[in-house]
């Protein structure tokens, strides 16, 4: 008798699974042209671009967003993977995908024409779409100087005045990696220790929280990406964020020498892209002047296309002179940077 019951259970279980299949399974057999995107970038940020792409080409985009594991997903899915392109927010993920062997090289003259060589993989596995500068937010009331360098953050005059997010965050790691690229590991370690001891508090919170901390008077300068300034300045729903933004101004570090550190958001073509033609169309579109201006206007990022202008608001913050060190070199140094953060105990805050 119990067998009947168990059979019943399995039947019901399979029925339920089949039901779920029916509910969520959208067949891809439709005539509509499609391109499938695995994205580490938040869907809201890429939506204006995808809408413009569909308007121009009629190709519909399907998106899966996750903050980690998408490259592993392509790897596991193998030859049947539905992914066409992978969008990322950081150089690390692009290289990670390349190392996992889930990308394919693309040598497209139009893309190569638009994207500067230092923001492309030499083998063509990925390229950058926007740059985001790691800048210094300074209190309007308490910081008088108009120029600053990353090296200067180690100066004892900043003692108890610096705020930043966790040293293990990808943005911090990018900056530390660029310091290693310019000064070597030992120098960077010393620098990192000195910056740690200048911190006003343990590194916590996101970039916006650092600006808030300046507004609160907890610290006088903070490291952050530029576009958060734009998001705060235009936040109509939570006008208090405008007040935070108004309490700070942006200083572009090292403008007089090598330039400010920039990281990229980028794109890679998936190894077994089933809609390869559409994927290449999308990648060409994202590198085009039209898409680049959307990035600049809506996301407050810096276009990678030489000649494409940043939005007026972004320009009002000052002129960005980007550090021209090759972005893949930054990627290669990420692991070292991450180790240095642990070794000096950066995230524990000031040692004395």
């Amino acid at each position, binding site marked *: 008798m119990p067998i009947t019951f168990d059979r019943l259970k399995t039947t019901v279980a399979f029925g339920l699974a089949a039901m779920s299949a029916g509910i969520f399974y959208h067949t891809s057999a439709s005539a509509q042209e499609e391109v499938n995107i695995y994205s580490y970038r938040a869907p809201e940020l890429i939506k204006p671009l995808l809408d413009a792409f569909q308007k121009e080409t009629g190709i519909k985009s399907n998106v899966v967003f996750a903050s980690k594991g998408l490259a592993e997903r392509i790897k596991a899915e193998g030859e049947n993977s539905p992914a066409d392109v992978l969008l990322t927010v950081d150089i690390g993920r692009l290289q990670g995908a390349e190392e996992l062997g889930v990308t394919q090289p693309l040598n497209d003259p139009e893309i190569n024409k638009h994207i500067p060589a230092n923001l492309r993989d030499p083998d063509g596995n990925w390229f950058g779409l926007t740059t985001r500068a790691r800048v210094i937010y300074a209190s309007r009331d308490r910081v008088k100087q108009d120029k600053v360098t990353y090296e200067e953050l180690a100066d004892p005059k900043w003692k108890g005045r610096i705020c930043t997010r966790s040293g293990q965050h990808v943005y911090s790691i990018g900056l530390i990696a660029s310091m290693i690229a310019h000064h070597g590991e030992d120098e960077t370690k010393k620098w990192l220790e000195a910056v740690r001891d200048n911190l006003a508090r343990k590194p916590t919170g996101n970039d916006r929280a650092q600006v808030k901390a300046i507004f609160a008077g907890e610290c006088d300068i903070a490291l952050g990406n530029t576009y958060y300034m734009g998001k705060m300045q235009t936040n109509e*729903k939570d006008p208090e964020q405008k007040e935070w933004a108004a309490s700070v101004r942006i200083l572009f570090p090292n403008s007089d020498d090598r330039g400010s550190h920039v990281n990229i958001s980028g794109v890679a073509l998936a190894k077994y892209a089933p809609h390869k033609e559409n994927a290449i169309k999308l990648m060409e579109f994202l590198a085009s002047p039209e898409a680049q201006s959307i990035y600049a206007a809506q996301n407050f990022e810096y276009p990678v296309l030489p000649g494409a202008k940043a939005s007026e608001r972004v320009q009002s913050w000052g002129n960005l002179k980007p550090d021209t060190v090759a972005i893949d070199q930054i990627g290669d140094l*990420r692991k070292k940077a991450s180790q240095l953060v642990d*070794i000096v105990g950066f995230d524990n805050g000031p040692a004395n």
Partner: protein
Amino acid sequence: MLNTICCRVSLLLSAFHHRGERAIALLSILLTVIAVLPVLTVIYLAIGSAGDNWHHLLSSVLPQSVWATLQLLAGTSILILVIGVGCAWLVTMCRFPGRRLFDIALLLPLAVPTYIIAFSYVELFDYTGVIQSTLRAVMGFKTSRDYWFPEVRSMGGAIFVMGFVLYPYVYLSARASFIAQSACTLDVSRTLGASPLRLFFRVALPLARPAIAVGASLALMECLNDIGAVTFFGVKTLSFTVYDTWLNRSSLTGAAQIACVMLFVVLALIWLENHARRQQRFYQSNTSAGKALQGYTLRGVHKWLAMGFCALPILLGFGLPAILLLSRAIRRHEGLFNPALWQAAQNSLVLAIIGASCAIFVALALSYYRRTNPGPLSQFLGRLASIGYAVPGTILAVGILFPVAALDNSLANFFKLNFGISTGLILLGSGTALVYAYVVRFLAVTYGQLDSGFGKISPSLDMAAQTLGQSRFGIFRRVHVPLLSPVVSSACLLAFVECMKELPATLLLRPFNFESLATTVYTATAREAYEDAAMPALFIVLVGIIPVVMLARTTIRNYRDKTSSRSLMPSLATTRNPQMAQGQ
């Protein structure tokens, strides 16, 4: 003639009986293998070299993160035990105003995902939050340098949030256990002159220990695997190290190795706790069905203390965060009419119902097998099947990804070869992988509940029913099902709430263009737009409240059933059995 026919029939029946037996055993083994496959995959991923990472991890990372994890777990266990057991005892054994209401409301924090509460507390307590703003306005301070205020982004903050979010697991199991402890035992103890405190510490608490251990281990595993809240508070736990090793040290192998070590430590602890009481068997008798527990009636200052003690966790674990979310959501009330939000709510609801039902069926099969075939094998299978809970979410999701994708690929190739149609990846493309992930992840919750539910039904009931001529199925249908039904519904609701809140697997394994409420919240926070997360977060809470209230009502009904004179099977109710048979 007639005799031989009878003989034949009974032989046939016994053969069938054996076949049924074997079928259950096979099914249980099969389900266990399926449930444990992702964990095996994680172990497989851990094989290999993590490069020079271990040297670095051991010297600069692990000492700190192990220490942070221990602090977090220790602090959280103290909070959840004091709140969970304390409230359960007060609500069960004492009479004071609002007791009924507290009984339901104490479960409310279950409806809110930990990361949402963490976010709410940072909003409340940081510089621009209501509390500090008021303080500044009242005291005339200008900046944060004028006064001292505890930093909410800290270990203390993390313990606080974990404690007030996770205590319901302990409360739920302790409460069920206190209710089930027969009035007899407690009455006898009281007749023998035990004071309320002595009664609690010497009788009720030891009897409830297995249940409390189950509840606490669920809560602590959740705490151990949390990544959202700890990142928010800047606490570098082992889970944080796992993700860091994967993403920043570019070593999934190393990450899987740390996860495996964590898993073995968790299993060892559970084994120790079981081993420590292996000599004991706990059965709750049904003989006290006619007697209600005589509670202590609290008066004066005691009454107020009890009310305060029960009100505090509700206020901190649910009230304050819910008010904050509501106030943020009202600012964005037009978001309420966004069809994407309702689609996400529907997706969450459907997925959670399917996920919870599947988790219940698997748990029922495994616990029933253990019931009918007590022994090391069945016990081992049950334990093994529920270890998915002890692996950090996204790592487990990767562990699910590989076997599912492998199966998916062979299905796709099968269809291509035999029918010439390209189906693509059906399991991942349809969301079936998500259901699988929920079962793997929350089997511990459902199996734990059902197994302890079966454990409370004394085997003498089965024997009595058998003597009275009931078949196996008859026993199941007429004895187990009625006695288990409150447990099944509470396990089902708990699994439902868990599925609603689940994030890492949903995020990674979902089909294209698919959003649940949890992923909607997450995508907003990923853009650092916490304000936009308020409305979907409120939806999770609202949808979560319904099963939580139902859950509370089930336990109360269960309690009333116990204390009423209605008995389930009059013919069996007279069976007497020892309250606690030592060394069975």
